[in-house]
């Protein structure tokens, strides 16, 4: 007896045949939802663009296979839930079992024991899932995977390094170090999951080119995303594999060996700052073992050597930032993004401040003395001086500091002995295997020293406010202060001097940001967003959007939006009891059954049975917990079966027509916005949810001025 049955998913990709023996097994997700790249409206979009130039050629066959395999893995990963949106206390839904049937150019190669083992091993380590593959022959008439639009002029410069570029601090530092520090000629490879590339990412690359014009810095971007049903899981633990596969495929196709996949050592190790972070709950995208296993795979796949490496592995983030200081380009930091919750965020406040990536970034920037380029104002919360919200923000910040304290309490050997996860970072066959443990421990200790030094600095900076108790109780400084953390007097005195000097030198200016506005005129719409303005022709979709922008965070039924599309009803809510629509089936949330009146009565009866049983079961009975869980699930299902005001959700046919109409109209409007206001388009792409109910849910909240 063990945990609940594992979620098992079978995907037929690009119409691959599924062996009958496989099909007959029990699956939670199965071939009814195929993943395809070969159709115009296929479920998985796979497109490779470089941003300038012409078609260069095609990926070699195995490189194309690797890209497709990685793409389908990422799509499957997103499609199958793993309980991250629920309180899955035992994490029983976290690990899944996948079988992907994929047509490839060389099925015999991929099905051979060594490549198959290498592939499943690297995926298993990075995702915590179990993977199996059935490979079949890809039809020759299927379109090739072109390496498109790479400017031949830039390639005459003969790039010699691939750098995987996410737009974060570390990939920025690695790019600069490669170009300027080592005189390399990198080609950057990026991945995006939306049609448009984040403008900030493009802008950052342009900034690097402007700053260092000697090399054109060619860029290849992969647009890979899954269309159709909303993603069931956002943890994206396969993304590291996808990213590495893309870079390796480009390198192999261009005859390049080194592929830089850069993250500072602390991020790569991603140490378990909390006991709940078991396995890949702490991401492993650039973990040393991930790179080792990926290199084992590429050595088998490609005839020419392709080698993934992380040049920042032995550096903390603050140490990596010294690359920018050394090359006099620290101002580039402002254009980088680290936040794990960046979607929908303003370009002026691009970081939430509370996620693990933001916390590490904030400390690193302070430790590197580069705060003017990345001030607190660009973070949604200043963890040092603002109250840390319950949940992740408080947990992450406090665990981060606690781990630093723990690290400093141990010498190198004690640290390795107590942090067994470090032992998983070692490559036993590496030439430096004997010294690697000490080096890893030393890295963590330098990081811990930086954290404590930053705390000292911030204590000094806010000593007056602390003494006067002006800072909130639940800010990081006050939460740390209770433990009697040592404040170094000499450092305090020195920091008072440098704080004064810094205040004089600080050139960061607060700019006035006009509030976002949408106003309906005569046959036109006037929109202002993040300082950009546009006047657009009348579109029904813009009216629907305006209604949603006026009610952020609220679920609006598509049927109601359609009902309000007539100008005479634009401002009228539906009449109370406006249900000439019969009470019938409720709106189905994806994957959940409909609830008609009989279903509701059954659930209500079952709830009463459970409550009666709970009254008589002893408190220690093991039967209580599953009954409590079932009761909570019933409450949730009954809640979802009710619409606004407690009314049952309405007829599915009319809802479906309204859903389709609203979705088409809004998408039509978004196409218009993509050209005119790309920043707003990107924001809405992240913040909108369309369906039978529609929601505009920006994070952080944005208040629009809406004039209809």
């Amino acid at each position: 007896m063990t945990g609940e049955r594992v979620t098992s998913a079978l995907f037929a990709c690009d119409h691959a045949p599924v062996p009958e023996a496989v099909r007959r097994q029990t699956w939670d997700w199965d071939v009814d939802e195929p993943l395809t790249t070969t159709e115009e409206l296929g479920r998985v979009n796979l497109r490779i663009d470089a941003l300038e130039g012409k078609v260069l050629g095609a990926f070699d066959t195995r490189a194309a296979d690797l890209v497709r395999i990685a793409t389908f893995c990422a799509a499957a990963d997103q499609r199958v839930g793993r309980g991250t949106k629920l309180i899955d206390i035992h994490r029983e839904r976290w690990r899944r079992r996948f079988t992907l049937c994929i047509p490839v150019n060389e099925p015999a190669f991929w099905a051979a024991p060594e490549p198959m083992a290498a592939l499943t091993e690297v995926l298993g380590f990075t995702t915590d899932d179990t993977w199996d593959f059935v490979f079949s022959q890809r039809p020759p008439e299927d379109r090739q995977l072109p390496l498109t639009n790479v400017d031949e002029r830039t390639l005459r410069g003969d790039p010699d390094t691939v750098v995987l570029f996410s737009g974060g601090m570390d990939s920025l530092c690695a790019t600069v170090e490669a170009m300027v520090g080592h005189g390399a000629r990198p080609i950057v490879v990026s991945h995006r999951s939306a049609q448009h590339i984040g403008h900030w990412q493009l802008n950052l690359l342009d900034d690097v080119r402007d700053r260092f014009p000697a090399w054109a810095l060619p860029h290849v971007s992969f647009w890979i995303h899954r269309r159709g049903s909303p993603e069931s899981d956002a943890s994206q633990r396969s993304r590291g594999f996808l990213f590495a596969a893309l870079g390796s495929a480009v390198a192999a196709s261009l005859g390049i060996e080194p592929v830089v996949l850069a993250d500072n050592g602390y991020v790569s190790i991603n140490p378990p700052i909390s006991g709940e972070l078991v396995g890949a709950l702490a991401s492993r995208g650039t973990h040393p073992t991930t790179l080792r296993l990926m290199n084992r795979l590429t050595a088998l796949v490609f005839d020419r050597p392709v080698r993934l490496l992380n040049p920042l592995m032995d550096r903390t983030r603050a140490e990596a930032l010294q690359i920018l200081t050394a090359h006099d380009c620290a101002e580039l930091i402002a254009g980088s993004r680290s936040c794990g919750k960046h979607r929908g965020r303003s370009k002026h406040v691009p970081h939430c401040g509370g996620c693990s990536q933001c916390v590490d970034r904030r400390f690193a920037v302070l430790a590197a003395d580069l705060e003017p380029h990345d001030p607190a104002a660009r973070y949604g919360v200043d963890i040092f001086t603002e109250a840390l919200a319950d949940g992740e923000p408080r947990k992450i910040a406090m665990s981060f500091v606690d781990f630093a304290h723990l690290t400093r309490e141990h010498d190198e050997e004690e640290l390795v002995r107590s942090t067994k996860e470090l032992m998983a970072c070692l490559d036993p066959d590496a030439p430096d295997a004997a010294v690697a443990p000490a080096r890893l421990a030393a890295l963590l200790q330098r990081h811990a020293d930086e954290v404590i030094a930053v705390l000292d600095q911030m204590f000094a900076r806010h000593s007056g406010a602390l003494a006067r108790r002006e800072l909130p109780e639940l800010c990081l400084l006050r939460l740390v202060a209770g433990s009697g953390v040592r404040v170094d007097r000499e450092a305090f005195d020195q920091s008072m001097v440098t704080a004064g000097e810094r205040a004089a030198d600080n050139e960061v200016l607060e700019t006035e940001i006009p509030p976002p506005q949408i106003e309906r005129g005569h046959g036109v719409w006037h929109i202002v967003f993040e300082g950009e303005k546009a006047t657009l022709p009348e579109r029904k979709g813009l009216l629907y959007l305006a209604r949603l922008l006026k009610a952020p965070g609220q679920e609006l039924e598509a049927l109601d939006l359609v009902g309000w599309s007539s100008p005479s009803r634009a401002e009228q809510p539906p009449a109370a009891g406006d249900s000439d629509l019969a009470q019938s089936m409720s709106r189905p949330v994806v994957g959940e059954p409909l609830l008609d009146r009989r279903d509701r009565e059954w659930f209500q009866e079952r709830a009463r049975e459970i409550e009666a049983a709970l009254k008589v079961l002893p408190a220690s009975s093991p039967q209580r917990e599953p009954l409590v869980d079932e009761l909570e699930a019933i409450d949730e299902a009954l809640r979802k079966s009710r619409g606004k005001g407690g009314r049952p959700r309405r007829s599915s046919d009319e809802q479906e027509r309204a859903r389709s109409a609203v979705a088409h109209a809004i998408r039509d409007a978004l196409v218009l916005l993509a050209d005119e206001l790309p920043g707003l388009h990107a924001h809405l792409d992240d913040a909108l949810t369309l369906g039978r109910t529609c929601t505009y849910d920006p994070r952080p909240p944005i208040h629009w001025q809406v004039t209809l």
Partner: protein
Amino acid sequence: MGHTIVGDLPKSQRWSVVANLLLSPEVDPAAVAAATVAAAERRLVALRGDPSLTYGFWLLTRLASAARGPDFLAAVAQLGVPAQPDDTVLTFIARVHDRARIELNRYPESGPYGEIASLALRGALAETVGTAGRSLFGSSLEELEGAFRRHSTAAQFGELAHRYFAEVYTRTLRFYVDRALATSIRPGGGLASIGDAHAFGEALDRHARQSARIVERFGAEWFVKHHWGSDGAISREEVGRFTAHALTKLRKELLVDASS
């Protein structure tokens, strides 16, 4: 840090007991441990047959018995661990981890206990050398073999069991409790600061390790009673039965500790 996924404790009655204990003026590790074990009972009972925990302990016992044989490298190679003569203890542990990782990936039904089993295995190996008074960094494979040989078979089995299951339950408790530990910190409360939470966490770990001594006591007895022979080469099925018994004993011990 890279991306992390953290969660909360459910609002059910049992888990609310754990959450409330963490907010109490005097936070008692034994009481928190007992409440956590009670709240997670269904899952912890189900661990009796967990293949990952069984495999981890089985591999540990087989590595120990390999050290008593004439050819340690050949014996561990048969277990899928390609050790080299000049391996240090840490590189050997890394090889063991590689082998275990492949096997444990076959059991997704173990959930987080796959990784917990792997961590417990590594920890037990590292501690085996540590108790011999050697530096972990400088120790060779030969010293690991010597550390394994230094005990009689039955006593060593009990000691290995203690190290392994202590780590399993330490990790288990923290897997749940840490979800609420940081957010239980309240100025003026029982856990008033990060330092208080850290000290509590260490106390909880000590409590789990101390409770796991029960596994050491009956482990040696079990070994003798089941006549597992002088070479200690125990089958996986037999280890599975011991693992189930050990987990049950430890779970009940943690429940008892709070009430005593």
